[in-house]
């Protein structure tokens, strides 16, 4: 059963990974992925993340259940932030624990591909030159999600 949190607050990837393995000896691999708010040459002042409360948790829960059905995971934590985030800030965390590395790597990759295309979040860029714009979908993300 995955732990899923949608929150405004920051997270600690190390602590989340430790929580997955605390008190157990059957975990052989933990993969953590952290997505960050990236700036390009000083153009971005901040990123505003809007989400659909309720559906965000439920949809990520469905994606997580799908991952747990496909790979033998021993633990799974997904944290997605919303609100205003500055360049360099952490946005999303996926931590997957398994007996062997392939399942943990693949599940984390699958989860990120599906979070990007299915989880109800939208990014708005507040630009340094004061022009705001909604981030457009990258076709590579759709291609990435279709490979699973």
């Amino acid at each position, binding site marked *: 059963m995955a732990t899923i949190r949608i929150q405004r607050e920051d997270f600690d990837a190390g602590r989340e990974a430790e929580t997955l393995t605390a008190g157990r000896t059957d975990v052989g691999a933990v993969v953590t992925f952290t997505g960050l708010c990236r700036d390009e040459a000083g153009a971005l002042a901040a990123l505003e993340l809007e*989400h659909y409360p309720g559906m965000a948790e439920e949809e990520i829960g469905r994606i997580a259940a799908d991952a747990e059905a496909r790979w033998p995971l021993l633990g799974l934590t997904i944290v997605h932030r919303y609100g205003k985030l500055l360049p360099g800030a952490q946005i999303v965390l996926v931590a997957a624990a398994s007996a062997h590395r392939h399942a943990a790597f693949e599940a984390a990759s699958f989860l990120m591909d599906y979070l*990007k295309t299915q*989880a109800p979040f939208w990014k708005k860029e507040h630009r340094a030159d004061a022009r705001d714009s909604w981030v457009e979908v990258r076709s590579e993300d759709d291609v990435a999600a279709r490979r699973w």
Partner: protein
Amino acid sequence: MKLVYFAWVRERIGKPEEQIVLPPGLITVEDLVRWLRARGEEYAHAFENPKVVRAAIDRRHVKPDAAIAGAGEIAFFPPMTGG
């Protein structure tokens, strides 16, 4: 029925949500979009390219041909850009 809007769909329509009494004869999400588009300029702007706008019924993704009968909450939003 409750309609909720997100991101630029919300901005174009000018409100995050509304309660609406639908006229009879609307069967699918597509029918609802067609009816909404005729409600005013802001709706026409939000749905100017209806293929782009996504929908969810009671917090689950649905296709344009999904039936709206029995829905409590229908959401419209652009393609998602989280992660």
